């Protein structure tokens, strides 16, 4: 098991009722972690243009996550 910090933004933060939390997980990838946390953010599939950042950089959903990572979960963006 790994320990990661997860941050929720915008819609995800509202749904999760929290801005961040520490999670124990066996997920190998960001996508897997996203699925594991569906009870928080309420979205089935990140490919609906959700984005993820790991340790300060934009990442891909199949990127691996490691113990101690900080994972940012972004709902679909709407700038401009």
């Amino acid at each position, binding site marked *: 098991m790994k320990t990661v910090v997860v941050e929720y*933004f915008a819609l995800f933060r509202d749904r999760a009722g929290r801005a961040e939390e520490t999670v124990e997980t066996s997920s190998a990838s960001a996508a897997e972690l996203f699925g594991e946390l569906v009870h928080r953010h309420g979205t089935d599939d990140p490919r609906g*243009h959700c984005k993820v950042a790991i340790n*300060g950089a934009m990442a891909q959903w199949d990127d691996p996550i490691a113990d101690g990572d900080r994972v940012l979960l972004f*709902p679909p963006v*709407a*700038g*401009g």
Partner: protein
Amino acid sequence: MARVSISGTPIETEALRNSMADVRAGGFVVFEGWVRNHNDGREVQRLEYEVYHPLAISEGERIITETCQRHGVIDARAVHREGLLELGDCAVWVGVAAGHRDEAFVACREIIDRIKVELPIWKKEHYVDGDSGWVNCERCAAHGHTHGHSTTS
């Protein structure tokens, strides 16, 4: 200097324009996104933007660098608001100075298109009827996902 910034106060459009003066430039194109009073059949009262600064700025700089190189423009800058905005407020400003107008138009369009779908920025609409909701991305709407549409443009 920083070509992308996030502002909690009204965007100073004239100061931005003047900061881009360059005697090598023959064409200058600006896009401004303004807060509209309606969206998708609903009356909008105000907007609220949430911005994740570190990545909005670094990704925005990347977009501008790539666009300047691709189209050979002289300079480009962008400012995005955050927090509460009222009707008519400028939510985003993009300016591009280039040798000729062709590149300036194309680059400005490309930058605003990418800002809208790539930067970690979220918009909540507050409606006249008291309701409110997060607006989902343009690309999602275009792909037929069951999301709202953009109030600015």
